[in-house]
């Protein structure tokens, strides 16, 4: 068996993998749009965002391997873990749906990650701070790109408005998990290594409110939220995605070309 388990991962490795898994899973999801976007400019934009996210994931996986010290490289984590070994939030693994779902998912994630990366730039961990400094610049473009589309869809035609409202109804329950903290992470926050997501909530809400105001949308009450991904309990969608992403390395372990 080639399956890689992370049950005994140190807090730092687990934290780094959570960040990496978010970036990889969303990056892969958006890459599924390649060749299918509603117009060529958007096809190029989405694949560029995917490229940024996968670039961020690569750096984070490489660092997780280094911190773990078991010889796992940047490929081992994405290719050799089963779905329950992934630690991404449920939001990023949700299927692309229509363009409105894809854009709103991206907007929620990017509007959260921009202030999050900015805060992580001050991390006591030099490598995480360095990766954050690069990712923060990229996230700024991701927020702007997705925000402009949220407004266009919300303030567009009857059809576009219906679609973004449906996307909002479907996705809102996945936003609560972005702000979760467990004991492992709490310890890293206290040591100045991890970011306390509570400190970026204000920024996130301001961005969402500002964009929703332009789009004519209303931020729903928080209410009941989905949870589980950060602990390895995923929706059924992740397994299907991984079966495609991992097929070659699982069928032909170590294959190179």
């Amino acid at each position, binding site marked *: 068996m080639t399956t890689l388990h992370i049950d005994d991962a140190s807090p730092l490795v687990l934290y780094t993998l959570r960040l990496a898994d978010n970036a990889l899973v969303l990056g892969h999801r958006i890459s599924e749009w390649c060749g299918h976007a509603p117009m060529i*400019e958007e096809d*190029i934009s989405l694949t560029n965002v995917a*490229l*940024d996210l996968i*670039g961020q994931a690569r*750096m984070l996986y490489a660092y997780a391997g280094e911190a773990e010290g078991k010889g796992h490289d940047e490929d081992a984590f994405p290719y050799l873990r089963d779905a329950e070994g992934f630690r991404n939030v449920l939001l990023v693994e949700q299927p692309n749906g229509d363009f409105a779902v894809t854009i709103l998912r991206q907007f929620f994630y990017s509007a959260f990650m921009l202030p999050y990366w900015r805060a992580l730039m001050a991390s006591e961990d030099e490598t995480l701070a360095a990766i954050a*400094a*690069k990712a923060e610049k990229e996230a700024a473009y991701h*927020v702007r790109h997705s*925000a402009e589309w949220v407004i266009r869809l919300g303030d567009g035609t009857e059809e576009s408005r219906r679609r973004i409202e449906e996307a909002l109804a479907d996705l809102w329950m996945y936003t609560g998990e972005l702000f979760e903290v467990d004991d492992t992470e709490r310890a890293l926050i206290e040591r100045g290594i991890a970011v306390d997501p509570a400190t970026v909530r204000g920024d996130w809400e301001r961005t969402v409110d500002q964009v929703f105001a332009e789009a004519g949308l209303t931020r729903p009450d928080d209410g009941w939220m989905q949870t589980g991904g950060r602990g390895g309990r995923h929706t059924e969608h992740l397994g299907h995605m991984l079966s495609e992403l991992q097929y070659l390395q699982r069928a032909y372990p170590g294959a190179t070309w």
Partner: protein
Amino acid sequence: MVNEATVAEPGVLEQRAWKAAATVTDPEIPVLTIEDLGVLRDIRVDEASGAVTADITPTYTGCPAMNMIAVAVDVALRNAGFTDVKINTVLSPAWTTDWLTTEGRAKLKEYGIAPPSGQTGRHALFGQDEVDCPHCGSADTERLAEFGSTACKALWRCRSCGEPFDYFKCH
């Protein structure tokens, strides 16, 4: 190990190595060298062994040109007589378009790509940069898309001459 590269004066080797590495161009924007781009950060030569280490930094985290650039720097240094070559990727400080040299900006414009202009902060949620058309010089331009043919560019159009063009984004 004695070779041509190990018999020069202190500091001369570094200069020679820098000159060699600085000839490497960006595979996507071949008018720019990695020196123009600010991707080449440092070169160190061990005087005793002649071993050379080149520091390069990625522009964007997912930039697919980085692997090619690393190979090209390795080849350039070997061609310059260095046999022990190490290419090191550094992440900090994060690359910024502020490192683009004046010469690099002029080359970009000549090539038809508008160089970065930072009138608007990249964090302004709805802000746009003011970009002059690299073809006719008009300031009457508009952004078509936030992203372009490579990670570092956006797609723009000139309202005066009607030509679309690439804009090298502020970063």
